[in-house]
Every structure is written in C-alpha cells, then in structure tokens.
C-alpha cells in the first residue's frame, strides 16, 4: 500500500506534499514516514494519507479561451504606467520596478 506523506516544516505553516512510503499497513507507514521525513528535525508534523483516499481532479477544459478569467489574462503594466504618469509618481516607484 502506498501512503502519501505531507509534512509541516514549522507550526502554523501549511502541510506540503513530501513524497510517499510503501508499507503493508498504517503502523509500518508511520515508522517509515518518521524515519524518512522526520529524523533530521525537518518536520514538526506529518500527515499520512493512503493513496486510494486521494481524489484527483485533472481535467480543466477551456474551449473558448476565456483569458479574462485567468490571473495572467489581463496585463495591467501599461495601465499602471499611465496612471503613475497622471499622478506624477513614476519616478518614485521603488527601484523603478513596474508591476506586471
């Protein structure tokens, strides 16, 4: 049985996928996950999830290319520049960096 292992690096931080362990049951999985993902003090907590318990979604159709619904679909770079020019704050932008 494969158990997916998620680890938390510090208290309060989100759990992130670390890898997996193959083990015959939960008690073996616990010991193996401890040794592989916890013995160097790299984690403060682990989640073990049997792979079968995961429900994966991997189909996201976008037949009509609705760019405006995506975070990268709308560039504000030019508009921001214009707005700064109007406000006269262009020179003051930190490090001259411009938002994308």
């Amino acid at each position, binding site marked *: 049985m494969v158990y997916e292992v998620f680890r938390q690096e510090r208290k309060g931080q989100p759990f992130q996928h670390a890898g997996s362990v193959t*083990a*015959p049951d939960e*008690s*073996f999985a616990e*010991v*193996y996950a401890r*040794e*592989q993902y916890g013995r160097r003090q790299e984690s403060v907590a682990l989640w073990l999830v049997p792979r079968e318990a995961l429900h994966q979604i991997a189909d996201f159709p976008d037949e009509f290319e609705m760019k405006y619904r995506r975070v990268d679909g709308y560039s504000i770079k030019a508009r921001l520049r214009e707005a700064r020019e109007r406000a006269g704050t262009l020179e003051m932008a930190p490090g001259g960096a411009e938002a994308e």
Partner: protein
Amino acid sequence: MSERADLLLAIADDELFLGWRNSEWTGIAPFLEEDVAFSSIAQNEIGHARALYELAAAELGTTADELAFDRRPEEYRCAPLVQLRRLEWARTIARHWLYETADEIRLEALKASNDPEIAGIAAKMDREEAYHRMHAEMWIDRLLSSEEGRARLNEAVDELWPYALGVLDDELRPELRRRAEERLGRTLPDVEPVTRGVHEAELAELWEEMTMVRRSAPAGARW
C-alpha cells in the same frame, strides 16, 4: 576502573556493536523503506554509544574515539547477543526486539539512578529507543499474524534466548522473561544465559572491520 565507568562501557559497547550489526543491512534490507528505517536505527544506536563513551571518557581521561576503537577485542564488554552476525531477517528482527525489550528494562532501572548524569542520559536514550521499540513491535505483530512468520520468529527467538538473558544482570532477567513470554504467548526455555565477558568469534571479525580505518592511519590523525 570504577563500577560506573564499567557500566557505561558495557552499555556503550552494546549500542556500538548492535548499531554496527544492524548497519550490515544497509543496501540489502528486504525492501527500500525498511532499508532506510533500519539504517537510521543503526545510526541512532551508534549515537547513543558515542554519548555513553563521552561520559565514560570524561571519567577515564580519554576520548570517545579511543574507547570505541583503540581497545583490544578482548577488552570490549558488550553482551554476546550483539556480537552475533545474523544476516537473516527473522533473526535480525528477533535480536532487535529481544535487545530493545531488555534495553527498556535496563533503561528503566538507570533512569532511577542516583547519578544525575546516568539518569539523564538514560532518559534521553529512552526517548529515542521508544521509536526503535515501535519498529520492533510492529514487526513482531506482523510475524505473529501468520503461521510462517510465527514459526520463523519462534525458531529465531529460541536460538537467541540465552543471549538475550545475558544482556541483563541477574536481578533483571525475570522481568525480561515475563515480558517476552507475555508478548509471544508461550513459555521460553530454561537456559543458562550467555553473559557479558564471553567473546564470540564474530566479535574479533567485527573488530577487525570496525577498527580497520582507524588502525591504518597514524595515531593522532585528524579527520
């Protein structure tokens, strides 16, 4: 040598030799996860040995490395149980479980020691040994759950039982028998313990290997 140093060396030698023996599975354990876990346990045991040698070294005016590697084979105080080379998985697990069970009894006694350093190191070791016991116990559960596993475990335990008794002093042995019999659900044979001070042929072989690098370098070489 004081009784205290003698005690520290006996336990340190146990941990060093067991760590070394367990590390013989690195790369060839039954499956990958077990390989990583068992190697990690082996490293822990060697870490315990170092801490114990350091404590003894402070008293004897020497260093942990000198105690670990510069003594003659006949000077080691480890129990014969950890000297044996048993590169067969049922025996390895049986030895691991018997040692951890005996070690738990020994640590319980040491934690109550009047010597704060000894009580302290025993408490520290015990917190790590708890995970070794968890590992050993899960294997015992697994082996006891099938007929073949039970038969192989029982055969291995019977072979190692006199050695397991030898890990502990006289007064602690009945407790080891009680715990082991309860866990296995059967009576263990009445045998003469193979005690500390007995040197199996395997000890000299392991000593040769373990000290080879150290002996090849001039005294005082820095690594």
